[in-house]
């Protein structure tokens, strides 16, 4: 959650939202979340688990690119 927060504060292009999965199970189910922490990027499940900053940025940007290509 903290890295997503930092990225959102550092870039106007990035927004971050934390969701308590047990309070909002319908949202978690819709995104295919089975373990936490789980990352969903541009409305698509990306990965579960904590990773260091550089890997986090790599994964977020890759997931965003994948979501963009699948939408076009």
């Amino acid at each position, binding site marked *: *959650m903290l890295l997503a*927060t930092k990225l*959102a504060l550092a870039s106007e292009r990035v927004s971050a939202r934390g969701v*308590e999965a047990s309070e909002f*199970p319908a949202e978690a189910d819709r995104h295919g979340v089975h373990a*936490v922490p789980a990352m969903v990027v541009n409305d698509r499940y990306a990965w579960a688990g904590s990773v260091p900053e*550089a890997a986090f*940025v790599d994964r977020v940007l890759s997931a965003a690119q994948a979501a963009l290509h699948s939408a076009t």
Partner: protein
Amino acid sequence: MLGEREQAAIREAFVPIERDVEVTLELGPTATPVTLLAAGGRELDSNAITREVVDDVCALSGRVRLRVVEHGEAGPWPRTTIGDGLVYQGMPVGYELTSVVHAIVEAGRASPSLSPATIVRLAELDEDVAIDVYVTPT
């Protein structure tokens, strides 16, 4: 709601805050209600607990201002928005209390605490990126 040790730890965590941070807490009926139980089977009122926790946290820094909005219509409540758009949906308790405290601290910094390499990569972004992080309190 917060014990003395927790309050002291949060006060210390808030020391790096350099600028004012607005926190907006939205409460109301949940669109997809679930029954949350504490140890012993007691039912939890997520709006009431969130109100108490966020009230307590925000009172621990003169730099943090809290605004509370009560909704009559069902929605993703309780929702806590920090600064310009960092959102936390649900009760900020357990590990997630730490997440909200850290988000307030980050929003109150003059510059982000990220590596220069990350800052460069973010500057190259030409598309919007929405990150949702699913968590649980334990």
